[in-house]
Protein backbone atom coordinates (compact mmCIF):
# COMPACT_ATOMS: atom_id res chain seq x y z
CA UNK A 1 0.00 0.00 0.00
CA UNK A 2 1.44 3.39 -0.96
CA UNK A 3 1.99 6.27 1.49
CA UNK A 4 -0.57 8.46 -0.33
CA UNK A 5 -3.22 5.80 -0.08
CA UNK A 6 -2.76 5.61 3.73
CA UNK A 7 -3.11 9.39 4.17
CA UNK A 8 -6.20 9.37 1.95
CA UNK A 9 -7.81 6.65 4.08
CA UNK A 10 -7.02 8.44 7.35
CA UNK A 11 -8.51 11.70 6.09
CA UNK A 12 -11.55 9.88 4.79
CA UNK A 13 -12.11 8.18 8.14
CA UNK A 14 -11.97 11.53 9.93
CA UNK A 15 -14.54 12.93 7.51
CA UNK A 16 -12.17 15.59 6.23
CA UNK A 17 -12.80 16.83 2.73
CA UNK A 18 -10.09 15.77 0.39
CA UNK A 19 -8.92 18.39 -2.06
CA UNK A 20 -9.46 17.44 -5.67
CA UNK A 21 -7.23 18.37 -8.57
CA UNK A 22 -8.27 21.68 -10.19
CA UNK A 23 -9.45 19.90 -13.36
CA UNK A 24 -12.12 18.09 -11.38
CA UNK A 25 -13.83 21.26 -10.05
CA UNK A 26 -17.29 21.61 -11.51
CA UNK A 27 -17.98 25.16 -12.55
CA UNK A 28 -21.65 26.13 -12.77
CA UNK A 29 -21.03 27.53 -16.22
CA UNK A 30 -21.29 24.95 -18.98
CA UNK A 31 -19.13 27.09 -21.25
CA UNK A 32 -16.34 27.32 -18.62
CA UNK A 33 -16.41 23.58 -18.16
CA UNK A 34 -16.08 22.83 -21.83
CA UNK A 35 -12.62 22.64 -23.38
CA UNK A 36 -11.50 25.63 -25.40
CA UNK A 37 -11.86 23.70 -28.63
CA UNK A 38 -15.58 23.27 -27.96
CA UNK A 39 -16.09 27.02 -27.91
CA UNK A 40 -14.74 27.44 -31.39
CA UNK A 41 -16.93 28.23 -34.38
CA UNK A 42 -16.75 24.76 -35.95
CA UNK A 43 -18.14 23.33 -32.76
CA UNK A 44 -20.96 25.90 -32.66
CA UNK A 45 -21.77 24.98 -36.24
CA UNK A 46 -21.63 21.31 -35.33
CA UNK A 47 -24.00 21.88 -32.41
CA UNK A 48 -26.38 23.80 -34.64
CA UNK A 49 -26.40 21.00 -37.19
CA UNK A 50 -26.71 18.39 -34.48
CA UNK A 51 -29.64 20.08 -32.78
CA UNK A 52 -31.53 21.31 -35.80
CA UNK A 53 -30.78 18.75 -38.46
CA UNK A 54 -29.31 15.51 -37.11
CA UNK A 55 -32.16 15.37 -34.60
CA UNK A 56 -34.51 15.15 -37.52
CA UNK A 57 -32.57 12.26 -39.02
CA UNK A 58 -32.93 10.41 -35.74
CA UNK A 59 -36.67 10.81 -36.03
CA UNK A 60 -36.69 9.03 -39.38
CA UNK A 61 -37.37 12.18 -41.34
CA UNK A 62 -35.45 12.32 -44.58
CA UNK A 63 -33.22 15.08 -45.83
CA UNK A 64 -35.87 15.95 -48.43
CA UNK A 65 -38.30 16.90 -45.66
CA UNK A 66 -35.78 19.16 -43.99
CA UNK A 67 -34.54 21.08 -47.00
CA UNK A 68 -37.88 21.23 -48.76
CA UNK A 69 -39.89 22.31 -45.75
CA UNK A 70 -41.03 25.42 -47.54
CA UNK A 71 -44.51 26.89 -47.39
CA UNK A 72 -45.46 24.60 -50.28
CA UNK A 73 -44.58 21.53 -48.23
CA UNK A 74 -46.54 22.76 -45.25
CA UNK A 75 -49.85 22.88 -46.98
CA UNK A 76 -51.81 19.89 -48.17
CA UNK A 77 -52.71 21.38 -51.48
CA UNK A 78 -51.44 24.64 -52.84
CA UNK A 79 -52.60 25.83 -56.21
CA UNK A 80 -50.81 28.71 -57.85
CA UNK A 81 -53.10 31.26 -59.43
CA UNK A 82 -51.59 30.80 -62.90
CA UNK A 83 -52.10 27.05 -62.58
CA UNK A 84 -55.65 27.42 -61.35
CA UNK A 85 -57.06 28.21 -64.79
CA UNK A 86 -55.57 24.99 -66.16
CA UNK A 87 -56.95 23.01 -63.21
CA UNK A 88 -60.33 24.68 -63.64
CA UNK A 89 -60.42 23.81 -67.32
CA UNK A 90 -59.48 20.22 -66.61
CA UNK A 91 -62.10 19.92 -63.89
CA UNK A 92 -64.72 21.38 -66.18
CA UNK A 93 -63.91 18.77 -68.83
CA UNK A 94 -63.81 15.87 -66.37
CA UNK A 95 -67.12 16.82 -64.77
CA UNK A 96 -68.91 17.36 -68.06
CA UNK A 97 -67.48 14.48 -70.12
CA UNK A 98 -66.72 11.79 -67.54
CA UNK A 99 -69.15 12.47 -64.72
CA UNK A 100 -71.93 13.90 -66.86
CA UNK A 101 -72.51 16.77 -64.48
CA UNK A 102 -72.20 20.42 -65.38
CA UNK A 103 -70.44 22.35 -62.61
CA UNK A 104 -72.17 25.61 -61.68
CA UNK A 105 -68.94 27.12 -60.39
CA UNK A 106 -65.32 26.16 -59.77
CA UNK A 107 -63.57 28.41 -57.28
CA UNK A 108 -60.44 28.29 -55.17
CA UNK A 109 -60.89 28.41 -51.42
CA UNK A 110 -58.18 29.22 -48.90
CA UNK A 111 -58.84 28.37 -45.30
CA UNK A 112 -58.73 31.56 -43.20
CA UNK A 113 -57.33 29.53 -40.31
CA UNK A 114 -54.59 27.28 -41.59
CA UNK A 115 -54.09 28.52 -45.15
CA UNK A 116 -54.97 25.14 -46.66
CA UNK A 117 -56.29 25.40 -50.19
CA UNK A 118 -59.13 23.58 -51.81
CA UNK A 119 -61.13 23.92 -55.00
CA UNK A 120 -64.86 24.18 -54.43
CA UNK A 121 -66.95 22.77 -57.21
CA UNK A 122 -70.66 23.45 -56.95
CA UNK A 123 -73.14 21.24 -58.74
CA UNK A 124 -76.90 20.90 -58.86
CA UNK A 125 -78.03 18.02 -56.70
CA UNK A 126 -81.44 16.44 -56.61
CA UNK A 127 -83.22 17.36 -53.40
CA UNK A 128 -82.59 14.40 -51.13
CA UNK A 129 -82.62 14.00 -47.38
CA UNK A 130 -78.89 13.34 -47.31
CA UNK A 131 -77.21 15.02 -50.31
CA UNK A 132 -73.75 14.07 -49.08
CA UNK A 133 -74.20 10.53 -50.43
CA UNK A 134 -74.62 11.95 -53.95
CA UNK A 135 -71.63 14.22 -53.45
CA UNK A 136 -69.47 11.34 -52.22
CA UNK A 137 -70.44 9.15 -55.19
CA UNK A 138 -69.27 11.87 -57.56
CA UNK A 139 -66.05 12.39 -55.64
CA UNK A 140 -65.32 8.66 -55.76
CA UNK A 141 -65.76 8.66 -59.54
CA UNK A 142 -63.46 11.68 -59.75
CA UNK A 143 -60.84 9.80 -57.69
CA UNK A 144 -60.94 6.93 -60.17
CA UNK A 145 -60.29 9.34 -63.00
CA UNK A 146 -57.65 11.54 -61.35
CA UNK A 147 -56.70 10.89 -57.75
CA UNK A 148 -54.36 13.87 -57.40
CA UNK A 149 -56.96 16.26 -58.76
CA UNK A 150 -59.73 14.79 -56.60
CA UNK A 151 -57.65 15.38 -53.45
CA UNK A 152 -57.94 19.11 -53.98
CA UNK A 153 -61.64 19.15 -54.74
CA UNK A 154 -64.58 19.64 -52.40
CA UNK A 155 -68.04 19.38 -53.91
CA UNK A 156 -70.89 21.49 -52.58
CA UNK A 157 -74.48 21.81 -53.73
CA UNK A 158 -75.29 24.70 -56.00
CA UNK A 159 -78.53 26.34 -54.98
Amino acid at each position, binding site marked *: MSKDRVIHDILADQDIEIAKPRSQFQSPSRLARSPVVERSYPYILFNFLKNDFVF*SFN*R*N*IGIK*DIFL*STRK*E*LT*RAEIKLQDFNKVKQKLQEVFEKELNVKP*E*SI*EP*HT*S*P*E*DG*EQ*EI*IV*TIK*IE*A*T*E*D*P*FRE*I*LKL*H*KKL*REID*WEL*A*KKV*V*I*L*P*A*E
Partner: protein
Amino acid sequence: MHPQEFLNMATYLDSLTKNPNQTKLLNPEIIRRTHVNRSYYFLYHTTRKALLEVMTKDNQIESELTTARIKLHEIFQHHWTLIKFYEDLAEILKQETQNTELADLAEDVSFALKTYKILRELADYHIDIHNPKKVKHKIDFLDPTKTPTTWNLLSINSLQNRANEIITKTNKLFKDLSEITLIWYPQIIRDILEKIEFQLNTKRKRTS
Protein backbone atom coordinates in the same frame (compact mmCIF):
# COMPACT_ATOMS: atom_id res chain seq x y z
CA MET B 1 -65.81 17.92 -24.72
CA HIS B 2 -67.55 14.74 -25.78
CA PRO B 3 -68.69 14.66 -29.44
CA GLN B 4 -72.28 14.04 -28.34
CA GLU B 5 -72.34 17.42 -26.56
CA PHE B 6 -71.62 19.16 -29.86
CA LEU B 7 -74.44 17.25 -31.50
CA ASN B 8 -76.77 18.18 -28.64
CA MET B 9 -75.87 21.85 -29.13
CA ALA B 10 -76.44 21.59 -32.89
CA THR B 11 -79.80 19.90 -32.26
CA TYR B 12 -80.82 22.61 -29.81
CA LEU B 13 -79.79 25.41 -32.19
CA ASP B 14 -81.56 23.67 -35.05
CA SER B 15 -84.75 23.44 -33.00
CA LEU B 16 -84.44 27.14 -32.07
CA THR B 17 -84.37 28.22 -35.70
CA LYS B 18 -87.39 26.08 -36.45
CA ASN B 19 -89.40 27.83 -33.77
CA PRO B 20 -90.42 31.20 -35.26
CA ASN B 21 -91.41 32.72 -31.92
CA GLN B 22 -88.04 32.16 -30.33
CA THR B 23 -86.15 33.03 -33.49
CA LYS B 24 -87.70 36.48 -33.48
CA LEU B 25 -86.33 37.07 -30.00
CA LEU B 26 -82.84 35.80 -30.72
CA ASN B 27 -80.64 36.56 -33.68
CA PRO B 28 -81.47 33.77 -36.19
CA GLU B 29 -78.40 34.36 -38.33
CA ILE B 30 -76.00 33.89 -35.42
CA ILE B 31 -77.91 30.80 -34.31
CA ARG B 32 -77.65 29.25 -37.76
CA ARG B 33 -73.95 30.10 -38.05
CA THR B 34 -73.29 28.55 -34.64
CA HIS B 35 -75.29 25.49 -35.68
CA VAL B 36 -72.93 24.97 -38.65
CA ASN B 37 -69.92 25.47 -36.36
CA ARG B 38 -71.15 22.90 -33.83
CA SER B 39 -72.01 20.46 -36.62
CA TYR B 40 -68.42 20.49 -37.86
CA TYR B 41 -67.01 20.22 -34.35
CA PHE B 42 -69.24 17.21 -33.73
CA LEU B 43 -67.72 15.45 -36.75
CA TYR B 44 -64.17 16.55 -35.93
CA HIS B 45 -64.40 15.27 -32.35
CA THR B 46 -66.13 12.07 -33.47
CA THR B 47 -63.34 11.36 -35.95
CA ARG B 48 -60.63 12.26 -33.45
CA LYS B 49 -62.14 10.03 -30.76
CA ALA B 50 -62.61 7.10 -33.15
CA LEU B 51 -59.07 7.41 -34.46
CA LEU B 52 -57.45 7.75 -31.02
CA GLU B 53 -59.44 4.77 -29.72
CA VAL B 54 -58.52 2.52 -32.58
CA MET B 55 -54.85 3.51 -32.40
CA THR B 56 -54.43 3.20 -28.65
CA LYS B 57 -56.20 -0.17 -28.61
CA ASP B 58 -53.70 -1.60 -31.08
CA ASN B 59 -50.64 -2.78 -29.12
CA GLN B 60 -48.34 -2.71 -32.11
CA ILE B 61 -49.19 0.87 -33.01
CA GLU B 62 -49.02 1.85 -29.35
CA SER B 63 -45.53 0.41 -28.92
CA GLU B 64 -44.31 1.95 -32.20
CA LEU B 65 -45.57 5.39 -31.16
CA THR B 66 -44.17 5.06 -27.64
CA THR B 67 -40.73 4.30 -29.09
CA ALA B 68 -40.95 7.38 -31.31
CA ARG B 69 -42.29 9.46 -28.37
CA ILE B 70 -45.23 10.63 -30.45
CA LYS B 71 -47.99 12.34 -28.49
CA LEU B 72 -51.14 11.52 -30.39
CA HIS B 73 -53.43 13.81 -28.41
CA GLU B 74 -51.21 16.81 -29.08
CA ILE B 75 -50.92 16.13 -32.80
CA PHE B 76 -54.66 15.75 -33.35
CA GLN B 77 -55.53 18.96 -31.52
CA HIS B 78 -55.21 20.66 -34.88
CA HIS B 79 -57.88 20.20 -37.50
CA TRP B 80 -55.59 20.06 -40.51
CA THR B 81 -53.50 17.29 -38.93
CA LEU B 82 -56.52 15.00 -38.75
CA ILE B 83 -57.41 15.61 -42.40
CA LYS B 84 -53.77 15.28 -43.42
CA PHE B 85 -53.40 11.98 -41.57
CA TYR B 86 -56.25 10.38 -43.51
CA GLU B 87 -55.05 11.95 -46.78
CA ASP B 88 -51.47 10.71 -46.34
CA LEU B 89 -52.66 7.26 -45.30
CA ALA B 90 -54.83 7.07 -48.41
CA GLU B 91 -51.91 8.17 -50.56
CA ILE B 92 -49.54 5.55 -49.12
CA LEU B 93 -52.13 2.77 -49.34
CA LYS B 94 -52.77 3.61 -52.95
CA GLN B 95 -49.10 3.82 -53.88
CA GLU B 96 -47.60 1.01 -51.82
CA THR B 97 -50.35 -1.56 -51.72
CA GLN B 98 -52.44 -0.68 -54.77
CA ASN B 99 -55.38 -1.28 -52.45
CA THR B 100 -57.83 1.33 -53.71
CA GLU B 101 -60.62 0.02 -51.49
CA LEU B 102 -58.71 0.86 -48.32
CA ALA B 103 -57.34 4.08 -49.76
CA ASP B 104 -60.93 5.06 -50.58
CA LEU B 105 -62.00 4.53 -46.97
CA ALA B 106 -59.32 6.92 -45.73
CA GLU B 107 -60.08 9.44 -48.48
CA ASP B 108 -63.82 9.25 -47.69
CA VAL B 109 -63.19 10.35 -44.09
CA SER B 110 -60.86 13.10 -45.21
CA PHE B 111 -63.37 14.30 -47.82
CA ALA B 112 -66.26 14.38 -45.30
CA LEU B 113 -64.17 16.42 -42.86
CA LYS B 114 -63.04 18.83 -45.56
CA THR B 115 -66.61 19.40 -46.78
CA TYR B 116 -67.96 20.22 -43.34
CA LYS B 117 -64.84 22.25 -42.49
CA ILE B 118 -65.48 24.50 -45.49
CA LEU B 119 -69.15 24.89 -44.53
CA ARG B 120 -68.00 25.87 -41.05
CA GLU B 121 -65.54 28.41 -42.45
CA LEU B 122 -68.29 29.94 -44.56
CA ALA B 123 -70.34 30.25 -41.39
CA ASP B 124 -67.62 31.40 -38.99
CA TYR B 125 -65.74 33.83 -41.17
CA HIS B 126 -68.80 35.44 -42.78
CA ILE B 127 -67.18 34.75 -46.13
CA ASP B 128 -70.38 35.09 -48.09
CA ILE B 129 -72.12 37.85 -46.15
CA HIS B 130 -70.00 40.80 -47.30
CA ASN B 131 -69.87 39.84 -50.93
CA PRO B 132 -72.71 37.47 -51.63
CA LYS B 133 -72.67 38.01 -55.39
CA LYS B 134 -69.05 36.95 -55.75
CA VAL B 135 -69.35 33.69 -53.85
CA LYS B 136 -71.72 31.27 -55.52
CA HIS B 137 -71.46 28.48 -52.97
CA LYS B 138 -72.99 30.58 -50.21
CA ILE B 139 -75.21 29.31 -47.46
CA ASP B 140 -78.17 31.51 -46.76
CA PHE B 141 -78.12 32.07 -43.02
CA LEU B 142 -81.08 34.39 -43.07
CA ASP B 143 -83.44 32.29 -45.14
CA PRO B 144 -82.52 28.58 -45.25
CA THR B 145 -85.28 27.88 -47.77
CA LYS B 146 -83.10 29.63 -50.37
CA THR B 147 -80.29 27.08 -49.93
CA PRO B 148 -82.22 23.95 -48.92
CA THR B 149 -79.77 21.28 -50.18
CA THR B 150 -76.90 22.78 -48.19
CA TRP B 151 -79.08 22.87 -45.09
CA ASN B 152 -80.00 19.22 -45.71
CA LEU B 153 -76.29 18.48 -45.44
CA LEU B 154 -76.41 20.06 -42.00
CA SER B 155 -79.54 18.32 -40.75
CA ILE B 156 -79.14 16.31 -37.56
CA ASN B 157 -79.93 13.05 -39.39
CA SER B 158 -77.32 13.77 -42.00
CA LEU B 159 -74.74 14.58 -39.32
CA GLN B 160 -75.47 11.37 -37.44
CA ASN B 161 -75.12 9.40 -40.68
CA ARG B 162 -71.78 11.07 -41.31
CA ALA B 163 -70.52 10.32 -37.81
CA ASN B 164 -71.57 6.66 -38.05
CA GLU B 165 -69.92 6.33 -41.43
CA ILE B 166 -66.69 7.88 -40.15
CA ILE B 167 -66.57 5.52 -37.15
CA THR B 168 -67.34 2.43 -39.27
CA LYS B 169 -64.83 3.41 -41.95
CA THR B 170 -62.06 4.16 -39.43
CA ASN B 171 -62.59 0.83 -37.65
CA LYS B 172 -62.67 -1.10 -40.93
CA LEU B 173 -59.61 0.74 -42.19
CA PHE B 174 -57.48 -0.21 -39.20
CA LYS B 175 -58.81 -3.78 -39.07
CA ASP B 176 -57.97 -4.35 -42.73
CA LEU B 177 -54.64 -2.53 -42.39
CA SER B 178 -53.45 -5.11 -39.87
CA GLU B 179 -54.15 -7.87 -42.40
CA ILE B 180 -52.01 -6.38 -45.16
CA THR B 181 -48.68 -8.14 -45.47
CA LEU B 182 -47.13 -5.85 -48.04
CA ILE B 183 -46.51 -3.11 -45.50
CA TRP B 184 -45.72 -2.97 -41.78
CA TYR B 185 -48.65 -0.73 -40.86
CA PRO B 186 -47.40 0.57 -37.46
CA GLN B 187 -44.29 1.88 -39.24
CA ILE B 188 -46.43 3.55 -41.91
CA ILE B 189 -48.55 5.25 -39.25
CA ARG B 190 -45.45 6.30 -37.34
CA ASP B 191 -43.89 7.77 -40.49
CA ILE B 192 -47.04 9.77 -41.27
CA LEU B 193 -47.34 11.07 -37.72
CA GLU B 194 -43.65 11.99 -37.52
CA LYS B 195 -43.94 13.97 -40.70
CA ILE B 196 -47.07 15.73 -39.43
CA GLU B 197 -45.35 16.46 -36.10
CA PHE B 198 -42.39 17.93 -37.94
CA GLN B 199 -44.67 20.11 -40.06
CA LEU B 200 -46.62 21.13 -36.97
CA ASN B 201 -43.41 22.26 -35.25
CA THR B 202 -42.26 24.13 -38.35
CA LYS B 203 -45.63 25.89 -38.59
CA ARG B 204 -45.38 26.83 -34.91
CA LYS B 205 -41.86 28.22 -35.39
CA ARG B 206 -42.99 30.29 -38.34
CA THR B 207 -45.95 31.75 -36.55
CA SER B 208 -44.11 32.44 -33.25
